[in-house]
């Protein structure tokens, strides 16, 4: 038999996959809304857990913010392949000539978008409720860390959610795989936030943490490129 006909372009495949994710999101709508709600509830619950013992939580701002974002990320990433799995459609995608790395990229982009929306709410809320002292002038710096961190989260998140996809207790496996990988992000994120919040900016510390995050993202990018083909390769 002769060669197959049309060689699809990966840009179109990527766009198609992202459009699909966003359409599902629009149809079920509550995903992003619930991520936002969840992060606010988490902040509240931590406020109750810690705040009652200590009135000024400024010192803990970074920690509160990034622990919350980490848990929200676990939640959001946990949904990445839910539709594919529950509705048994993955075989259809895998039987199409789409490079596995494009699948990864599409999911990663969706995660970055969802996380960014969540942060758009969380970062101001933290500022309003927890910080006593200067905050708003450093919001640009915080946004920058968040941006880099989102890339880390998206890269590691897609990889691990791809792995968790066919494990038996997926809902539990994912946080167990993913949270430890997020610990460095939490530390660096909290550190960087702390460096610019509630007092004089410590830019050298801030830069150090940001570089750390960039390194982490690069390392994970390499891992993803090296392994992602194998994730879906039966």
């Amino acid at each position, binding site marked *: 038999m002769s*060669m197959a006909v049309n060689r699809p372009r990966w840009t179109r495949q990527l766009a198609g*996959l992202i459009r699909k994710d966003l359409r599902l999101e629009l149809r079920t709508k509550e995903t992003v809304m619930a991520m936002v709600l969840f992060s606010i509830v988490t902040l509240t619950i931590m406020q109750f857990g810690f705040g009652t013992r200590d009135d000024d939580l400024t010192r803990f701002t970074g920690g509160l913010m990034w622990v919350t974002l980490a848990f929200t990320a676990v939640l959001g990433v946990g949904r990445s392949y839910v539709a594919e799995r529950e*509705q048994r459609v993955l075989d259809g995608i895998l039987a199409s*000539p789409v490079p596995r790395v494009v699948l990864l990229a599409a999911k990663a982009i969706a995660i970055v978008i969802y996380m960014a929306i969540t942060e758009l709410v969380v970062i101001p809320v933290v500022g309003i409720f927890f910080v006593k002292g200067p905050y708003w002038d450093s919001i640009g710096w915080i946004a920058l860390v968040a941006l880099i961190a989102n890339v880390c989260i998206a890269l590691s998140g897609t990889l691990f959610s791809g792995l968790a996809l066919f494990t038996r207790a997926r809902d539990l496996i994912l946080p167990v795989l993913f949270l430890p990988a997020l610990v460095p992000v939490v530390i660096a994120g909290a550190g960087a936030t702390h460096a610019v919040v509630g007092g004089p900016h410590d830019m050298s510390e801030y830069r150090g943490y940001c570089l750390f995050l960039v390194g982490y993202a690069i390392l994970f990018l390499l891992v993803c490129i090296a392994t992602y083909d194998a994730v879906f390769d039966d």
Partner: protein
Amino acid sequence: MSACGVGHIYGERAAVADVHLDVVAGERVAIAGPNGAGKSTLLRMVATLLRTGTGTLTVLGEELPGGARRARCGIGYLAHDPLAYLDLSPRQNLQLYADLFGVQDADRRIDDLLERVDLIARADDPVRVLSRGMAQRLALARMLLHEPRLLLLDEPHASLDAAGTALLDAELATMHADGRAAVIVTHEVERIASVADRLVVMRRGRIVVDEPVAGRGPAQVRARYEECIA
């Protein structure tokens, strides 16, 4: 496609063992056999969804697993499940697959196909609310979308009503002329005479019979099949 000594072992159970099967352009092969014979497993391997454990498998001139991506462009796979997102509409599902397969002039082709499988009236409802047979029709449309040169059908008649069945059979009847090939797994042995040129019977992971059905009637095919698996 051509399979040579192909096998797959799940854990310690050999689901498919030492299968030799050649399908040439324009040919339609029906695979029958008892439950658990390994038919679906074989089909999944040809569809590049499962690696072969042993043997070599060449599909559309590409050797697997290396050439899997190129082979996929020309394969249409119909599984037990409809492989559609339940929260998207039939049209949106087909749009996604059109993007993945790089289908030209996608919107027109999607409308055409929806018309053909008689889903145009439900094209914008979520798949979740379709009846089982409608979902199967959508699966048919999805499979045909990119004009595959090799169709792999796993119990395609399941849940289809008379009209749907006629549609599928008509599609299969045109294959001969355009040099496309099809492998059809089915339990409805009586249909084989009308949809296929060759009968392959599997048992316990192996092919026990592989012969043409040309000129035989449904009853004859049924009798031959029962003889094979006795």
